[in-house]
């Protein structure tokens, strides 16, 4: 069945979106603005991993079709993205005396700076990680599922990171402080939480996850300076669908948007099969529900959610 194949692809793509959307949502709730540089933070992570991987090489053995060196590169990607975000917070956002709209506009400038620097350094062309492309796992092929070991590695790593974040938020001191701050920053500060420090950790975690997402996106597709910016709106759609500020909502939203994105061919099959009357409506739907409009569908869902249920599917639930 083709359905299983689409679902499997959706799962892989969802993992990347989830990694991006968690960070965006965390920053949205704790730093209190829509960070338009988040997509480009992913790109920064991806290119940092590319450079690191080129420098350290494979380092011998391999897990899930990925050499050890790739995991070093992944760690480097996470670290560089986090450092870039913290530096930006310290140098740009923190000294700014402005409201959340001013920060939003500034973050667009930051996004362009990241992308401009990367593009000057690496050119605008597509590149790939220097890992061997794998064939789809043979035992799954009869079910119509075409995933490689790399895809499995992406999903597994994403699950590890997400579970780690869950443990951090629920069971550590920092997690409790972050949740308190997301809930009510003023109250958090008067109860003695060092909000600046928590904010910095938020940037580290959010940008680190984005960096990981960027590395996986590069592994899943290719690397290009525009890759993060192109994904940014899809990630926003996921965050809004999940409910801004809710990390678990962002996970759910990321999962749903990723799935919907990859299931679009299936939807177009369904639309074709359904007897829709009148004929012009069917024709219009057939042309609009197609792979070219996979992102557009996510954006439209985003606007509808904003209108109908601005708190997202997770509702008012706390972080």
């Amino acid at each position: 069945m083709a359905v299983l194949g689409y679902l499997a692809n959706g799962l892989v793509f969802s993992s990347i979106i989830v990694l991006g959307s968690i960070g965006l949502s965390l920053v949205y709730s704790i730093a209190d603005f829509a960070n338009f540089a988040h997509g480009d933070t992913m790109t920064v992570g991806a290119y940092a991993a590319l450079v690191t991987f080129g420098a350290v090489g494979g380092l011998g053995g391999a897990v899930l079709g990925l050499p050890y060196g790739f995991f070093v590169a992944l760690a480097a990607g996470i670290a560089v993205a986090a450092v870039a975000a913290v530096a930006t917070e310290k140098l740009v956002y923190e000294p700014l005396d402005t409201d959340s709209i001013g920060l939003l506009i500034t973050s667009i400038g930051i996004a362009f700076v990241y992308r401009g620097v990367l593009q000057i350094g690496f050119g605008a062309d597509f590149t790939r990680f220097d890992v061997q492309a794998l064939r789809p796992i043979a035992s799954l092929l009869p079910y119509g599922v075409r995933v490689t070991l790399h895809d499995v590695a992406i999903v597994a790593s994403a699950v590890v990171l997400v579970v780690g974040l869950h443990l951090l938020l629920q069971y550590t001191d920092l997690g409790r402080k972050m949740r308190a701050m997301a809930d009510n920053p003023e109250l958090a500060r008067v109860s003695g939480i060092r909000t600046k420090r928590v904010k910095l950790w938020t940037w580290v975690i959010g940008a680190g996850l984005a960096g990981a997402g960027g590395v996986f996106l590069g592994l899943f597709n290719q690397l290009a300076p525009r890759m993060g910016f192109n994904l940014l709106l899809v990630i926003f759609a996921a965050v809004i669908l999940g409910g801004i500020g809710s990390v678990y909502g962002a996970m759910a939203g990321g999962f749903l948007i990723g799935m919907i994105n990859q299931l679009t061919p299936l939807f177009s099959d369904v639309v074709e099969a359904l007897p829709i009357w009148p004929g012009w409506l069917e024709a219009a739907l057939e042309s609009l529900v197609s792979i070219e409009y996979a992102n557009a569908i996510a954006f439209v869902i985003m606007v509808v959610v904003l209108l109908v249920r601005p708190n997202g599917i997770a509702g008012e639930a706390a972080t």
Partner: protein
Amino acid sequence: MSPLGDPRGAPSGLTRSEELVLGVSAAFLLFLLVAMLTGALGPTYFLFLVGLAGMYALLSLGLNAQWGFTGLINFSVAAFFGIGAYGTALMTASGSPIAGGLSPLAGLAVALVAAFALALLIGIPTLRLRADYLAIASLGLAEVVRLIALNERWLTNGSAGVRGIPGFFRGWPVLSTFPDAMPGLRIEVIPGSPVILETAFWQASLNVLLVLAFAGVAYAVLRRAHRSPWGRVLRTIRSDEDLARALGKHTYSFKMQSFVLGSLIMALAGVFYAHLNLYVGPGDLDPITTFYAWVAVILGGSGSNRGALFGGVVIVAIREGTRFLNDVALPIDPAPLRLLLIGVVIVAVMRYRPQGVLPPQRELIWPRAVGGSGTPETPDSGVRERKGGGGDE
């Protein structure tokens, strides 16, 4: 934002930033004139730049009507620019997949109607949203418009774009033949490097005339609107929407009016661009156009129409300056350098001068209300002189 807040804002003299802008503009104009006379800058290309500056100024004026007046964070500038360009291109171009061959005036009308419809389509759902949601939603909807332009081949010719767009003055009584009728001129200021004015030059000067007309009308309308009671309501909404509502204003309807007004001006910029570039493709709907307009407005000063004009000129300086730099000095690809510069300008303005270079101070008051003469308009004439200077050559 208070019009009387700045003590230097006395109506008799110029503020320091106004003097600065005037000085920079004059120096820039002088530089361009020298470059042109020595033959380093072709006069036709110079006029093309002036046209482009006018186009960005129009875009910025449109955005200013939305963000500067009412505080609407519209990130779908590129969509309105694109629908203006596509609207006229599809009506007039020989390569149009649907109509084609119509008069550019019909194209202008269709473009404006299409932009009006799109403004309602985007505005009705999004203008009720909180400011930051409006930003995200409008950027998303602009992407939807771009994807439609890219994929609906029967309508827009897809990624190939629309070719064969005529000049705006085709079919007009005198102006359509004006460039061919004008004699070629040869001006030799510096011996050995003559400046030659030919058909292309006259064509370009017609384009400049067109954009000056568009920008002049838009500027006059906006300036009048900004000072009117209507404009005052918009400014109230911008600073405190709840207050405006408490005063009994139907804020949603005011926001919609300012959104539509701005969108129509952006579409005008698109119409001009189509007849300047003679080609329109889906790449013209790239979000970067939106952010060019944003940079121009923020840099010029949100809410300031003169600032928007100034911002338009700066954008062209960045766009063409990077290309020039690449040709002459540093072999850096101009596209990423442009991105970097745009980013740095946004961050620097937000950090060091969030009110912009030419914040709206006396622009908001009727000159006679403070008993002064017409001096507040001096910087405008600075910009106009610069533009007019090219046309007089």
